[in-house]
């Protein structure tokens, strides 16, 4: 089955790009190909050799039998035992190190999953719908955290989402995909600084996009 066709994306170093589009347009498949989880594809991935990829899955995918601290350390190479205090503090996880994932709310588990991806000091950070199934307050908090850590660590970030507001709020660039066969419809550059993107801005931008791409943007 063909999930993605003619997908040509160039992400500048340290940028934050959002892939949006209706479900079934191959967003997740694209991320999986990038992370080399899917190898059955034609095309090229231009990643620098030895590039580290941090993947944040839609579900947290933590090991329930390991503590939060052990879960994050699991992905570190060799016997590296760096101090995770700063990272945990950035994500508000200071008190959580010795907890087990079964004790965490989904929002907290997602933060741990994000911490795990960041712990390897990734060159590329892939986020697969990281804010779904959260209540709006928790999702908003997590979006701010993502923005904070992206600014601090500057990984080249690719975020898959179907939520246009979220993309407008966070991304420097939005790539709009259409389904069956999925292809790039538009690339929208957002150069307004993040702190100026208030609700009015997000709403105005969304209305503009809905007008320009009816049926693709909700």
């Amino acid at each position: 089955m063909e999930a993605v066709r003619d997908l040509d994306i160039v992400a500048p170093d340290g940028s934050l790009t959002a892939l949006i589009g209706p479900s079934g347009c191959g967003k997740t498949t694209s991320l999986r190909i990038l992370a080399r989880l899917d190898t059955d594809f034609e095309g090229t991935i231009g990643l620098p050799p030895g590039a580290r990829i941090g993947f944040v899955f839609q579900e947290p995918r933590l090991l329930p039998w390991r503590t939060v601290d052990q879960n994050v350390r699991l992905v570190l190479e060799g016997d590296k035992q760096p101090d995770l205090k700063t990272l945990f503090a950035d994500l508000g996880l200071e008190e959580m190190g010795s907890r087990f994932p079964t004790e965490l709310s989904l929002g907290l588990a997602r933060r741990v999953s994000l911490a795990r991806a960041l712990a390897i000091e990734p060159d590329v950070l892939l986020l697969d719908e990281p804010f779904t199934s959260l209540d709006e307050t928790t999702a908003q908090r997590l979006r701010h955290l993502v923005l904070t850590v992206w600014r601090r660590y500057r990984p080249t970030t690719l975020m898959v989402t179907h939520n246009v507001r979220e993309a407008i709020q966070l991304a420097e660039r939005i790539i709009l995909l259409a389904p069956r066969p999925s292809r790039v419809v538009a690339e929208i550059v957002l150069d307004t600084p993040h702190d100026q993107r208030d609700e009015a801005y997000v709403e105005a931008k969304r209305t503009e996009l809905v007008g320009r791409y009816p049926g693709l943007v909700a």
Partner: protein
Amino acid sequence: MTGRREDFTHEDVGIRGPRRRGFPSCGGEVSVKRPRGNAASTLLSVLIFLAVWQVAAMVGESRVFPAPSAVAAIIAEEIASGDLPYHLSATLLRVLAAFSIALTLGVAIGLAMGRIRSVDRLLDVWLVVLLNLPALVIIILAYVWVGLNEVAAIGAVAVNKLPNVIVTIREGARAMDPDLDQMAKAFRLSVRKRLFDIMLPQLQPYIAASARSGLSLVWKIVLVVELLGRSNGVGFQLNLFFQLFDVASIFAYAISFVAVMLTIELLVLQPLETRANRWRVRTT
């Protein structure tokens, strides 16, 4: 008479299910502190068992159904002479060796069969054959082919237990979470980490189940092995006492070994399981 003997052979079942048989009057107290409650209710059911035995012995003929006191005297005597510790430890060593071999090999083969389809297809027929081969046939063939030695004895017991471990672990390996595999792949985790942090923890309940059923099965087969081709161990002694029609000594050896196994269950297996399940307990 036969009815009573049957009760006796099922005695391990009575000891193993203490919580279900606890008296309601002390139930509330017992359930508060698990480890201590366990020990208390186990002790209680041992006492009940001894009382039933005593009553039965008073009704039955002492030669074929000796009283607890008579058996206790023999146990004390045999301990003092050093015979009981010697034969018990011989059997226990065989049990532990065969059990470790069967569990290690079984986990490795079961994991491979559960994860890799070609391995599963290749070994499935062998597994069915092993599962259906009577223990006695394996033991006799081992003694014939390898010789009347320790390697044959322990090997035969391990081979008897092996297929059950494989079947259980294979089920566990098939039920593993593919999402975690992907996570491991995305983060390029080493084989060692995939095995010890991701696969074995998922297999842990299956390993525990194999260990539980395995230990009791293994010791029963070890007795047969000892009876047929060894010159020490509980099985060898039981055969000797059978020829002498010494039922009290048979009781003494059987009970001593069950006591040893119960101790292992309470002091080793259960604490290990509690430790391995820490993350589950905290869920609420």
